């Protein structure tokens, strides 16, 4: 069982975001970390390989600036190796460009049975990249998985829906997106963190993958930011300290609105 997991390296979500005035895109210059949303996919991949009785997990990622910190986080959890595409021309890549780059990575990883990704990233949250990747690879896809199992020839997924969940089956190879919270990502031990330092990380340029720089990054996105404006701020109202009776304040507020 060979599972490829898409991992996005993002600016620390706890730090306030900032726009680059010249490119009008999110600044990604600082330290990057593995998107928490991807830790569920990594955990799922490790569990599926264990259940299958063996195999390997390959992390695939891209970064405009040689960054591998977030990928190391996934290796510390137990993934075996990583393929990271890093190239200045990736700056400004949209979801389709990203899918093109990651598709080349999956092909390079060779004989992948299952591709896992998060349902959406924390920073860009377009949620379209995994399905675009599946289309480019010619794979079936199942999004919003809350439970995943395989028997080596097919994948069975409990897929979150508006009304509950559906049981979906697809032949392997396939792509599945994993919703957050459905498995508990393991916390890497100190030993695992040290071991991750020696795991293979293949750094590739676009040229290495035979990709044209014009088909990715800003040029490939074929879109522009036409304006950036401050939204009208919502004003703070009354703030009260609970003296044991604050609930009555809420009740009368709701009564005024005729909600109760």
């Amino acid at each position, binding site marked *: 069982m060979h599972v490829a997991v898409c991992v996005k390296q993002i600016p620390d979500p706890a730090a306030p975001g900032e726009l680059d005035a010249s490119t009008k895109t999110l600044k990604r210059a600082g330290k990057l970390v593995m998107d928490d949303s991807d830790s569920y996919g990594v955990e799922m991949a490790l569990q599926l390989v264990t259940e299958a009785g063996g195999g390997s997990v390959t992390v695939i990622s891209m970064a405009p600036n040689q960054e591998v910190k977030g990928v190391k986080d996934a290796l510390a959890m137990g993934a075996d190796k990583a393929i990271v595409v890093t190239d200045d021309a990736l700056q400004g890549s949209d979801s389709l460009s990203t899918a093109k780059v990651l598709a080349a990575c999956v092909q390079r990883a060779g004989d992948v049975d299952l591709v896992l990704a998060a349902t959406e990233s924390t920073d860009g949250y377009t949620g379209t990249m995994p399905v675009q990747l599946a289309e480019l690879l010619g794979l*079936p896809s199942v*999004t919003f998985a809350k439970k995943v199992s395989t028997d080596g020839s097919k994948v069975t997924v409990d897929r979150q829906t508006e*009304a509950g969940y559906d049981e979906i089956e697809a032949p392997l190879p396939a792509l599945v997106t994993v919703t957050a919270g459905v498995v508990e990502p393991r916390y890497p031990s100190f030993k695992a963190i040290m071991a991750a330092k020696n795991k293979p990380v293949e750094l590739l340029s676009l040229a290495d993958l035979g990709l044209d720089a014009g088909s990715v990054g800003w040029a490939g996105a074929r879109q522009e930011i*036409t304006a950036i*404006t401050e*939204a009208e701020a919502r004003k703070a109202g009354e703030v009260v300290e609970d003296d044991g009776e604050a609930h009555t304040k809420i009740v009368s507020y709701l009564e005024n609105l005729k909600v109760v």
Partner: protein
Amino acid sequence: MPVGKIWVVAEPAEGGVATAALELLTGARGLGSAVEVVTWGSGAQAAEALGAHGATAVFTVDTGDLLPAVLVASAIAAAIEAKGAPDAILAAQTYESRDIAGRLSAKLDLPVLTNVVGLAEDGGRLVSEHAIFGGATMVNAAFNGTSPQLFVVRPKSFAAESSGGSAPATEAITAGDTGATGTATVKAVHVEERSGPKLDEAAVVVSGGRGLGEKEKFDMIEALAKLLKGAPGASRAIVDAGWVPYAYQVGQTGKTVKPTVYIACGISGATQHMVGMKGAKHIIAINKDSEAPIFGIADLGVVGDVHKVVPKLIEALKAK
């Protein structure tokens, strides 16, 4: 030069189409010269509702027991081939429609703009609006000449309004050969019984966050929501922690809600959350940290312990 024809991807729901589809139709008919719909499943029986919201043609795709996205995207690509491309295709940011837009984008090598919360026409092309940094900043974007323009629009971005139109003719369109991509099959459907209104349609939403401390405490959020005939919601933190399913999540990577009253319990107000609920008419927040950002947008803020305030609130409402 105005925008010409727009196709709207209308997701089926409960024997008809989703409210999000009617919202999109309402938005689209104010932008394009004609609006046509692509739908599947129970959407094929919704011609009347679709017509009443401005659709002048309905194209249906038979998806059988397959997961619909691949088939619908393939059928749209084939229809573009046969009928010519519309100026724009709009899909709602819902489970199937977002996948359809993604499949279509890769199939036609077209960029797609997602998380759209508004659309306007400017010089013959559509300009989309996106909320970033928790809705504090709005960004406008447009395509550099790609056609059709492909947008994925968040539900609640437009209000559904009837146009008074009649049911248009429906026409079946079919997918081409989808090969291995079209092999994901729906084996069983599980409907979880839920009393009360849906999260994105409820007049009252009561949400819980990390401040609840443990999974079991979400019971009081559900109890309060039930008392107010509302729906329970959640912050991303407790969805990630596995306390409640993803369907409960309010925020950027979750649902946008615009209820009359939103009650945030033990939610600090990360930008991730606020972008999904700041459109509520009235916001009540209960949090023990007086510095929590949620108080910056709450109409009534209570600095206090949710474990004390919420049970008392429940008792007081029950006593009424």
